[in-house]
């Protein structure tokens, strides 16, 4: 084998290695069942419900800003069928508990202590929010939290999803 062939083989391997790792869950994908992962806290049943799954951490400032907006959405839209689940990726259980105690969210929060779920979903930023329709498919993905602009977008998209008919069993 000539030097040129050797280099070509090495280049091929290099290109293969440079291919991107598994990407984030995208619009149209089915969101994994929360029960399948080891979460600190009780994961609610999401089947047949419009669900907002938010990945957050106590060390992330925009996550802190987003909680009042989610609380408002919960108050307005939970009676119409919206379910909000905040999934913390905190390593530190004490900081997670202090954050939850200080903000007292009215919606469900759990902690992905082993990072099983977040590694499956592979979020690209903190916070990342997935809006799921009643069949459990990802319909919208939001990276970061941008104040009133994000809150308005959430409201509009959730109302669209709530207006859709439930899937046939």
């Amino acid at each position: 084998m000539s030097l040129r062939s050797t280099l070509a083989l090495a280049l091929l391997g290099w290109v293969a290695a440079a291919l991107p790792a598994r990407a984030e869950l995208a619009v149209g994908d089915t969101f994994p069942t929360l029960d399948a992962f080891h979460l600190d806290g009780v994961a609610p049943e999401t089947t047949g419900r419009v669900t907002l799954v938010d990945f957050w951490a106590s060390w992330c400032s925009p996550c802190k800003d987003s909680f009042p907006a989610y609380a408002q959405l919960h108050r307005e839209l939970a009676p119409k069928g919206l379910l909000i689940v905040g999934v913390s990726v905190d390593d530190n259980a004490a900081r997670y508990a202090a954050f939850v105690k200080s903000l007292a969210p009215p919606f469900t929060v759990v902690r992905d202590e082993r990072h099983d779920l977040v590694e499956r979903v592979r979020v690209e930023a903190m916070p990342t929010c997935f809006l799921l329709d009643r069949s459990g498919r990802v319909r919208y993905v939001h990276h970061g939290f941008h104040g009133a602009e994000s809150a308005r977008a959430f409201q509009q998209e959730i109302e669209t999803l709530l207006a859709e008919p439930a899937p046939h069993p």
Partner: protein
Amino acid sequence: MNLRRLPLALALAVLATAAFTGCTSTKLVRVQPWQRATLADYTMRPDRDPLATTMSEHIYFSREAASGGRGVGGSGCGCN
């Protein structure tokens, strides 16, 4: 093609691939967004010591006639 040199060439190719892989694999070099708690810690802020910041500012001002423009918001969590 000289077939006697094939094993050596293959070994070289594998070695080169392994070496280059370390430079290119995003999985190896990238701290994932959910792993940035340490980077987001207060101690990672370059301006956490007001006295040191003042002294640095003074040096830039007196030696380089430069002032301001050094601040960046937040620490290393990369949020937003």
